[in-house]
């Protein structure tokens, strides 16, 4: 049976190459796209699942419930001292903190600082994260205050082929300290958000610079806990409000658990969980790509089934002949099913090959290292072969084997399932084009939004600007940072150097203040505080909406001395803060004093400075000024001339003044580009998936158009004999194809509307979902359909009637 089916298939494909390419190629492409996107989705869903006992591990989140709600959300960190306090209150609690991580410290060698992913952890780290050790005893190493563990690749980077164990290593986290390498652990896999190349013991007491170690509401470390089961975790979580009341009451006043709660998040969910005020866009992106994968495969399957069933009508005569020769119905059904399954198997194999060939490109373009897990992929593909093969084979198998052999052999025409068959195919084309049109709309919106984000007004000029976040490094003392800012300012080509606690890039986290508004009951809105030094506004150049900016001539502008805050200080607010404080216009805010016992007078209102990800909503912020360099400053260098030359100058200056701290400096453009990376990656994958899905749908339509036109050639002959012109025929055939394509909009429009509305909601600054996208996409889909069917129709319309009448 299989041999006969294989031979039949081979001959069909050899004779009808275009059909084979369209049918098998389309399905293979669908399988390849689904496979690739599926791999990406699987990768995104697999984060931290590689950890032994990952089901028992939880991250403690700090949930803020501040007035106004602008900064409320669950943050993936806690104050550094939380774990110590928890252990005092809950003896026997198993957990660890991770302080640092990505670029969390630097290895000092030969006067140079090499930034590395350094994490300080508690000695119980290995009770939570059972990392595989290459050599050494991890637990014992972390119990030693001078012990360090390094990853296999860090060992190679730092020591080459030499044995690192026992070697000294000077590492600066807060201050340089010499450790001894006590062991090597295996590199962490790609599917983790833990960035650890070097593990160091957590300091026994708060380092001098860490003023917020026991400060509730801060989130400077990640605290992980391990529980034997989910019920135990839930029980522990239920005790958190009373724990917060007991521990935070002194700092946060009565009912601290109304402002801050602690919750537990399973480690496997961390990667896709929204952080803080973010929307759930990561989860949404992964879900969307999953849907694209499924829909592309569905389109390809519909395509395949459609073409296969349509063409099977042409085989009615063969089936009748086989019946005449003694084949019974069961034999014929088995033959059709075997053929269909073989075809799908060929397509699956081709899809697998396509995916293997495309994966290196996808990986390179998106910084991924995905591979096909054959142990999973092959059974899934086998199931697909059975299901799709059965679906595609069953209809013709049942239909054709039921036809009367005598009737088919006597008839001049091949049956194709009659009106029911045509309706089914039309329904399938409608569904397929519905999905394709939805993809076109989604792609258009996606491209428009991505372009909008790139073009959008950030409130400052992004070219001619270099940002230096490493000025905020804990190891740089105030004197040194002053000297660095001065030296940067003196470089040729520099227009201004401003330092502020905020700057381009970063995650948008920072200090939040609750600002009382006179005459308004309650606590007042939560507003972010940005401390800025001289020239900050000169470097960024925000639009001044009302009032003035800071000026050294006004003594009250300087808020550097916090002891004088109760006497009042001047602040500049942004537009959103002015609105949050209840002012009808920027001008109305100027001169007003807010802040209750710590009065703050608004001297100016500026437009938004959008420093963060386009997904971060516009934040209400007030700026306070210090004549000195503010604490934890990010420097902004406004310059003229070649950015590369300027970057070299920055590098030289930095190396001269602060060799022990690695320089992190980038142009604003580059830094902003990184914020768009995740979106770009998702948009690219979406674009590839959607583009190929549309292609598959078009190819399918082409196949069906040529098939249907071929079937109607005799009809065309009759119509022409009766006086129809070539254009009448073209119109007749086109209308037949446009009907399902136009009906498809009924599926596409609502589908795309809801999907894109949800997606756009994740952006702070977004385009409007205009009907133009929908109309344009439908026009494009209709144009594609017309172009696809046009060639076939024109050719058919030109056929000589005499030939057409004898065509079978």
């Amino acid at each position, binding site marked *: 049976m299989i041999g006969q089916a294989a031979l039949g298939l081979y001959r069909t494909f050899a004779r009808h190459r275009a059909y084979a390419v369209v049918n098998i190629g389309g399905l293979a492409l669908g399988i390849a796209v689904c496979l690739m996107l599926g791999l990406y989705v699987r990768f995104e869903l697999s984060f931290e699942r590689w950890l032994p006992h990952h089901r028992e591990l939880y991250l403690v989140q700090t949930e803020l419930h501040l007035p106004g709600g602008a900064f409320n959300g669950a943050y993936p960190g806690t104050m550094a001292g939380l774990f110590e306090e928890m252990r005092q209150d809950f003896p026997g609690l198993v957990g660890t903190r991770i302080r640092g991580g990505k670029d969390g410290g630097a290895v000092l060698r030969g006067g140079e600082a090499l930034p590395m992913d350094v994490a300080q952890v508690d000695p119980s780290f290995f009770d939570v994260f059972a990392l595989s050790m290459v050599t050494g005893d991890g637990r014992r190493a972390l119990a030693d205050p001078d012990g360090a563990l390094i990853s296999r690749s860090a060992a190679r980077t730092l020591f080459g082929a030499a044995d690192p164990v026992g070697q000294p290593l000077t590492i600066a986290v807060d201050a340089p300290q010499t450790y001894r390498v006590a062991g090597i652990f295996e590199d962490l896999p790609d599917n983790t958000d833990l960035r650890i190349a070097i593990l160091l013991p957590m300091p026994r007491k708060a380092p001098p610079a860490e003023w917020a170690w026991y400060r509730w509401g801060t989130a400077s470390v990640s605290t992980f806990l391990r529980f034997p089961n989910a019920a135990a975790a839930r029980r522990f979580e239920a005790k958190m409000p009373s724990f917060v009341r007991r521990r935070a009451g002194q700092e946060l006043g009565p009912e601290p658990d109304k402002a801050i709660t602690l919750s537990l998040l399973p480690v496997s969910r961390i990667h896709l969980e929204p952080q803080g005020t973010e929307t759930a866009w990561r989860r949404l992106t992964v879900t969307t790509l999953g849907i694209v994968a499924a829909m592309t495969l569905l389109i390809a399957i519909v395509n395949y089934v459609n073409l296969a069933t349509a063409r099977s009508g042409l085989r009615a005569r063969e089936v009748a*002949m086989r019946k005449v020769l003694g084949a*019974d119905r069961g034999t014929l059904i088995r033959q059709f099913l075997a053929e269909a399954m073989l075809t799908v198997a060929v397509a699956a194999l081709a899809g697998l090959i396509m995916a293997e060939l495309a994966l290196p490109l996808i990986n390179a373009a998106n910084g991924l290292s995905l591979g096909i897990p054959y142990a999973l992929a092959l059974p899934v593909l086998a199931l697909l072969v059975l299901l799709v093969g059965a679906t595609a084979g069953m209809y013709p198998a049942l239909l054709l084997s039921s036809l009367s052999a005598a009737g088919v052999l006597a008839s001049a025409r091949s049956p194709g399932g009659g009106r029911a068959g045509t309706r089914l195919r039309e329904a399938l084309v409608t569904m397929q084009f519905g999905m394709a049109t939805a993809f076109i709309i989604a792609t258009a919106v996606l491209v428009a939004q991505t372009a909008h984000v790139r073009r959008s007004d950030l409130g400052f000029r992004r070219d001619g600007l270099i940002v230096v976040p490493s000025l905020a490094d804990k190891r740089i003392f105030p004197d040194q940072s002053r000297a660095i800012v001065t030296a940067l300012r003196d470089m040729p080509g520099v227009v201004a150097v401003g330092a502020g606690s905020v700057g381009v890039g970063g995650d948008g986290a920072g200090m939040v203040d609750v600002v009382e508004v006179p005459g308004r009951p309650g606590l007042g809105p939560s507003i972010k505080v940005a401390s800025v030094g001289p020239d900050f506004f000169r470097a960024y150049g925000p639009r001044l909406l009302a009032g003035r900016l800071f000026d050294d001539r006004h003594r009250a502008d300087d808020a550097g001395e916090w002891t004088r805050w109760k006497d009042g200080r001047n602040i500049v607010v942004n537009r959103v803060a002015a609105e949050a404080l209840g002012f009808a216009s920027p001008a109305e805010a100027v001169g007003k004093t807010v802040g209750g016992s710590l009065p703050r007078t608004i001297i100016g209102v500026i437009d938004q400075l959008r420093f963060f990800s386009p997904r971060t909503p516009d934040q209400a912020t007030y700026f306070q000024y210090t004549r000195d360099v503010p604490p934890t400053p990010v420097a902004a260098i406004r310059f003229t001339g070649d950015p590369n030359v300027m970057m070299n100058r920055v590098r030289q200056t930095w190396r001269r003044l602060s060799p022990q701290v690695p320089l992190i400096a980038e142009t604003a453009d580059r830094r902003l580009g990184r914020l768009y990376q995740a979106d770009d990656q998702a948009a690219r994958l979406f674009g590839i998936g959607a583009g190929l899905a549309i292609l598959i749908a078009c190819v399918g339509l082409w196949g069906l158009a040529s098939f249907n036109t071929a079937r109607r050639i005799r009809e065309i002959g009759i119509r022409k004999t009766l006086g129809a012109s070539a254009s009448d025929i073209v119109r007749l055939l086109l209308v037949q194809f446009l009907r399902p394509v136009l009906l498809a909009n009924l599926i596409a429009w609502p589908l795309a509307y809801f999907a894109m509305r949800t997606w756009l909601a994740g952006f702070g600054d977004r385009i409007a979902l205009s009907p133009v996208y929908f109309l344009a996409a439908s026009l494009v889909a209709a144009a594609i359909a017309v172009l696809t069917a046009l060639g076939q129709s024109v050719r058919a319309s030109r056929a000589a009637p005499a030939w057409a009448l004898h065509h079978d």
Partner: protein
Amino acid sequence: MIRLQNIQRRYVSDEVETTALHDIDLHVAEGEFLAIMGPSGCGKSTLLNTLGTVDRPTGGRYLFGDRDLAALDEKALAKFRGQTLGFVFQSFNLIDELTIEENVALGLAYRADAGNRRARVAAAMDKVGIAHRAHHFPHQLSGGQQQRAAIARAIVGDPKLILADEPTGNLDTANGEQVMNILSGLNAEGATIVMVTHSPSHADMAKRRIDMLDGRIVASAMRDI
């Protein structure tokens, strides 16, 4: 060998009833070569399809030897066709995707007792003079060659009865003659043949001829030998 008694075939569609065969009584002896003639629509092909069991009569009895075929279900009839009958059609009905050799082998595909298939296929092709085209596809052959291949497919299983539905209808005179000579030769070797034809000269090559009109046998004549 074959006995039809009061065979009727009625078609009912959209409340219109058409009777294609009226009380047909027919006996076909073993080794006979019977030609059926008559105008279009007289029921010739229906009668042939009934004999070939691809169409079921709505009344009457069909005895093949001692077997009453009315009692057989579809599966049994399929097996019966594969083992007992050979068909030749006006439009050849070769499968485009298969070579001539494979098309001929199809005549044995649904038989469990086919023996040495390759040898039988070769012999059948040889017999009709088509062996040199074994590896060609139907569209590469002339009409006459295609019909000879179809005859090879019909005889490859040594059927007890060959049913030919206007086997020369799509052929020119020379090719028609050639096909008729093959059929006569087969009959001379002992094959039983029932043939529908429009051609009086081809009908004359049969041993007996019946004429049909409006679903009835209106005349029967034996050829003088």
